[in-house]
């Protein structure tokens, strides 16, 4: 018998109340679904506020500060404004598909929340294939962009969709390859098991290269600066979603903000130990706090990056992915697989769950990662030197100019 009914003991509670087991089960699952689907919708309003505040601070502005305390209700006002705007469907648009695209856009992001372990107890669905589920759901994202671009009956939207698809597909390769590393170390695809495996050592210490790759690939997947070519608001108006207005446009935008936050959440779960923290095993609800803090670190770092770095060109975007990220990810997978086997063979694999048992393995993997980083840095330096020589041969710099100018100032 439970005194208080909560989401933790809802099934038992309903059973005690005389509800049939099937119905109680269904109601519990339904409650979980509603909760998991609603939280992102509410969160996104405050995410936009945080984003605008931080961008404003970086650019030496105040940001929204008129509506509500600290401008907190600015996003609510914006949302209301968006809802009351006219909903335009362009002439010749494929209506059904045109209306379907924004729904898919937001649904694919909300679906990811189903597998995120917030605390040891709270997870939508602890699938045995958690990571693969994330990759599969994320891959549906390309479909939404294609059908939004095509159904708008606008050639700019279609071209924008092509450009975006090329970007998303390219960066999916390093994203999946970097996810392979924590899967190999933890030996599981399940999200909850993956967090448990980080109990004594976060994966970011064992696989820093994979964590950085995951972060960069996610910046591109979510269309964040410096990879925001799909929107590029200062150069072109928008891409695939140019014809959308009002609430449907809002769905795309909300999906985009939510996706960026979800990516930070996943990075915290997979590389930063998820809900682990002091006393979390005694008080599971603390997991929300720890996961929130870790996510905030990743997310705010992304936000500051967004408002400080310039946008890359499309050829630079492709070159960065195919010439750098993909080869580095493949090398990283090979090195980590080899080192894990070596560690296992010479008996350094962790036998127990405490910190010191994990230390040898972590050090070996860390050294492997450092060697890889050093290799990449060497190649980068040599390339930079070679490029500088080519540039100087093409446009000779006249070093004699400098003293003359200095002399001119002296007169």
């Amino acid at each position, binding site marked *: 018998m439970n005194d208080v009914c909560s989401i933790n003991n809802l099934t038992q509670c309903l059973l005690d109340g005389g509800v049939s087991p099937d119905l109680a089960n269904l109601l519990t699952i339904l409650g979980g679904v509603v909760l998991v689907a609603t939280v992102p919708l509410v969160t996104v309003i405050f995410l936009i506020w945080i984003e605008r505040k931080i961008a404003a601070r970086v650019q030496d502005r105040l940001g929204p500060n008129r509506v509500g305390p600290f401008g907190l209700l600015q996003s609510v006002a914006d949302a209301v404004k968006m809802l009351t705007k006219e909903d335009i469907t362009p002439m010749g648009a494929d209506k059904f598909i045109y209306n379907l695209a924004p729904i898919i856009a937001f649904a694919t992001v909300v679906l990811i929340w189903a597998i995120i372990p917030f605390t040891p107890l709270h997870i939508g669905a602890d*699938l*045995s*294939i958690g990571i693969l589920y994330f*990759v*599969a759901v994320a*891959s549906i994202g390309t*479909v939404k962009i*294609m*059908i939004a671009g095509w*159904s708008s009956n606008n050639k700019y939207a279609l071209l924008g969709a092509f450009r975006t698809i090329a970007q998303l597909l390219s960066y999916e390769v390093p994203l999946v390859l970097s996810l392979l590393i924590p899967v190999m170390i933890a030996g599981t695809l399940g999200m909850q098991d993956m967090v448990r495996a980080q109990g004594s050592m976060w994966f970011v210490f064992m696989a820093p290269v994979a964590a950085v790759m995951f972060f960069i690939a996610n910046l591109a997947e979510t269309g964040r600066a410096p990879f925001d070519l799909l929107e590029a608001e200062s150069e072109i108006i928008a891409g695939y979603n140019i014809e959308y207005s009002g609430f449907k446009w809002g769905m795309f935008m909300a999906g985009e903000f939510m996706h960026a936050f979800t990516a930070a959440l996943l990075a915290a779960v997979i590389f930063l130990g998820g809900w682990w923290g002091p006393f979390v095993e005694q008080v599971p609800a603390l997991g929300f706090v720890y996961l929130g803090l870790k996510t905030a670190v990743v997310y705010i770092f992304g936000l500051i990056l967004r408002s400080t770095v310039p946008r890359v060109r499309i050829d630079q975007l492709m070159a960065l992915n195919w010439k750098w990220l993909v080869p580095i990810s493949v090398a990283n997978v090979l090195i980590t697989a080899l080192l894990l086997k070596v560690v296992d063979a010479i008996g350094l694999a962790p036998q127990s769950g405490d910190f010191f048992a994990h230390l040898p393995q972590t050090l070996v993997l860390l050294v492997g990662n450092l060697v890889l980083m050093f290799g990449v840095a060497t190649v980068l330096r040599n390339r930079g030197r070679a490029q500088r020589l080519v540039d100087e041969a093409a446009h000779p710099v006249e070093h004699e100019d400098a003293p003359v100018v200095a002399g001119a100032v002296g007169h």
Partner: protein
Amino acid sequence: MFELNAQSIAFIVFALFSLGGALGVVTTRNLIHATLYLILSLFGAAGFFVLLSAPFMAAVQVLVYIGAIAILIVFAVMLTRSMTRLSDIYNSQWLLSAIVAGLLFVLLLVGVILPVWGVNGTQAGREVSSIVTTTVDLGKALVDQNQYVLPFEVASLLLTAAMIGAIVVARDDKE
């Protein structure tokens, strides 16, 4: 034999998805709609994998097929002159191929329903195996020398060859 529970309802929904989607693919005159119907049909197949306790296969189905079909749409858009109102018949032997395809379908149906070529799974009323294989088993089977390592390697080699072939075909020789 047939009872209405959550599982059978899910089965019916997924069957409608995959059959209706497949029907849509061949009847619509709009290439984009055809690819979207194909997505629906393959999504139904992914649902069957979930019902058969093979979540790994379901995720791979969505990842490989639905994720890759966006690319198919891109190709459909880029390679065709008119995607929306296909009225020209490009193949003059369509009637012959339709009859052959119909006959093959009847043959398949007879083979599954009637015990003409020996008893098969559907007729024997076999129970679904209670052994749920995990992803780990699947991974081990793929690299086990007594199981599927040879087909696995041959398939990898074939895909690599196809990729290199595509690069060679697409490369500009003038450089």
